[in-house]
């Protein structure tokens, strides 16, 4: 099989253009602004901002910039299993603290 056929079969999905990524960048900058704004509204708002806006920003980078959107299910499963593992460790640690 020639090099070209393998490569094109691998990237069968249409590539997004410059515009898509620039839009995502604008959203990321706006979300950063929101996060900074929320951090001035007091401790509770800051923690909620941290817990919602930060994963959202990370998700956008993963999904668009890192092309997870355009990859098959295997890549998504690999990432989700990793995040799930970290979440389990987090839960185990805090359950240990709570019942100490």
């Amino acid at each position, binding site marked *: 099989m020639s090099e070209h056929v*393998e490569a094109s079969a691998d990237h069968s999905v249409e590539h997004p253009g410059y515009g898509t990524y620039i839009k995502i960048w604008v959203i990321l900058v706006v979300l*950063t602004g929101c996060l*900074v704004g929320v951090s001035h509204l007091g401790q509770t708002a800051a923690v909620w*901002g941290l817990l919602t806006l*930060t994963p959202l920003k990370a998700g956008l980078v993963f999904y668009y910039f890192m092309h997870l959107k355009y990859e098959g299910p295997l*890549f998504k499963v690999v990432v989700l299993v990793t*995040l799930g593992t970290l979440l389990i*460790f987090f839960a185990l640690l805090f359950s240990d603290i709570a019942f100490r």
Partner: protein
Amino acid sequence: MTEHVHRDDFGARLGMWLFLVTEMVLFGGLFIGYSYMRYRYPAEFHHGGSELNATLGIINTLVLLTSSLTVVLAIVAVQRAEKKRALAFLGTTLGLGLVFLIIKSFEWAAKFHHGLYPNSRHLATLPPGEQVFYGLYFTMTGLHGLHVIAGLSVLGVMFWWVATDRIRQDRYVHLENGGLYWHLVDVIWIFLLPLFYLAA
């Protein structure tokens, strides 16, 4: 002449992702440690956060976000065989990465100037919670800084390979993988900003 070249772009990207998840676990462990310590020393972490320069942290966030954008734009340019544009985008990323490190070095230098550095005498006089805060601050931003240096080295090679046509329209998985690494470095910083700089 037809030569058989074995290439598996899917496998190359999968390998990169498997490496990246080990990085996620490495930093994830530190984040879990941070969350416990912040739970244990809320007042000290609040005070420690107020000592950090939030403006520099926010500027560095924008610098890294933009450098992430230009990497992904460089890939689009290579896909469209726009070599000059690809080099301009990658060059911008390299420049922004250096700006990040320069800002970081000023920030650390200011901390050192105030006697705040790992194992310093002044640090030993602070309450335990603040010692933990600065310990985590230097460990996590330092480890992240090393990743920025590694990412810049990789992307520097990618720049060279685009310039010499080793990366081109029909063959650019190396650039994709180098970009993936750079984006992960960006994602880690996305978490470091609110955890340290906006903690007050």
